């Protein structure tokens, strides 16, 4: 599966890796729901670290939609909520 880390680019991951990321993502989601900024920061960092370790970068000229999109490193809960509410995205 192709995933994107916002601000960094896209990676190719196998299914097993995606499962692992999904587990980490559930912690991220819980932190967003609970408005727990500290837990969110930790969960996001863990998610990004694993994604970078498990994934292989796509060539820069690849034009592919991503199955999963990870917030940028250092993002806040507010930023993620804005992404989820469809705010600030540029229509193609």
């Amino acid at each position, binding site marked *: 599966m192709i995933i994107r880390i916002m601000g960094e680019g896209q990676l190719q991951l196998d299914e097993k890796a995606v499962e692992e990321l999904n587990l980490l993502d559930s912690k991220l989601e819980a932190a967003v729901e609970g408005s727990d900024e500290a837990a969110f920061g930790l969960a996001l960092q863990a998610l990004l670290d694993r994604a970078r370790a498990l994934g292989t970068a796509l060539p820069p000229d*690849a034009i592919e939609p991503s199955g999963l999109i990870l917030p940028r490193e250092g993002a806040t809960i507010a930023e993620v909520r804005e992404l989820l509410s469809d705010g600030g*995205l540029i229509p193609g």
Partner: protein
Amino acid sequence: MAALMGVMKRVSTIFRSKANKALDKMEDPRETLDYSYQTQLELLQKVRRGVADVATSRKRVELQMNQVQQSSDKLDRQARDALAAGREDLAREALSRKASVQSQLTDLSTQYASLQGEEEKLTAASQRLQAKVDAFRVRKETIKATYTAAEATTRINEVFTGISEEMSDVGLAIQRAEDKTEQMKARAGAIDELMASGALSDALGGAPHDDIQAELDRMGGGHSVDLELERMKAELAGGSAPKQIAGSAGPANGGQQAGTSFPAEQPRTEEVQ
């Protein structure tokens, strides 16, 4: 829908639906490609301007860091001069200003690092986008040449969604960089004002009210007048004072020499200090 879907999937779904909405607006999906290509070129321009803006902002912070450093060095010199002249109060004032100048410097270093990081990220984003836009141009022409409108739909959907996602990502990065440079401009303006007001004394010599330096200069002037007076008094008195105090009457004793009498030939060396 939220609970079981996960953040990563939800964000991806939102990006996709955004792209689909834009696609649906077009009668002929092939037109979408041309339209999108124009938007991509505009975004490329924008991201390059963004890189240039961040670089400008970073250079301004760098310039201020140099000025603030010079200011700190100057206050340090002034503290030493004041202490040498026996003015601990003035030295204390200079050092307390130096401390606040130093904290400005720490703050500026943090801003500098953050702008540098932003510049690197945006430069990388600009290069990624450039590679994709070039690839898109080629694929767009291939699709238009090879397929009818009906056939092209699936392929267009894929490439359009892919490039839209990239553009959204780059667009957000530009926005973030813009916000940061705006904040930085405000801070830089505030520091320039502080410098102009003399609160951060400008070591380049342009500070209008450097009261510490004024006080040091005034003391220097007063000192030489006192010495001159002493020399004249000594001359009139016949110059029979003992010689042993000559070497100890250095600038450290400042203007407190008023009552001491000097041998006639000594004060000349004092005046050159």
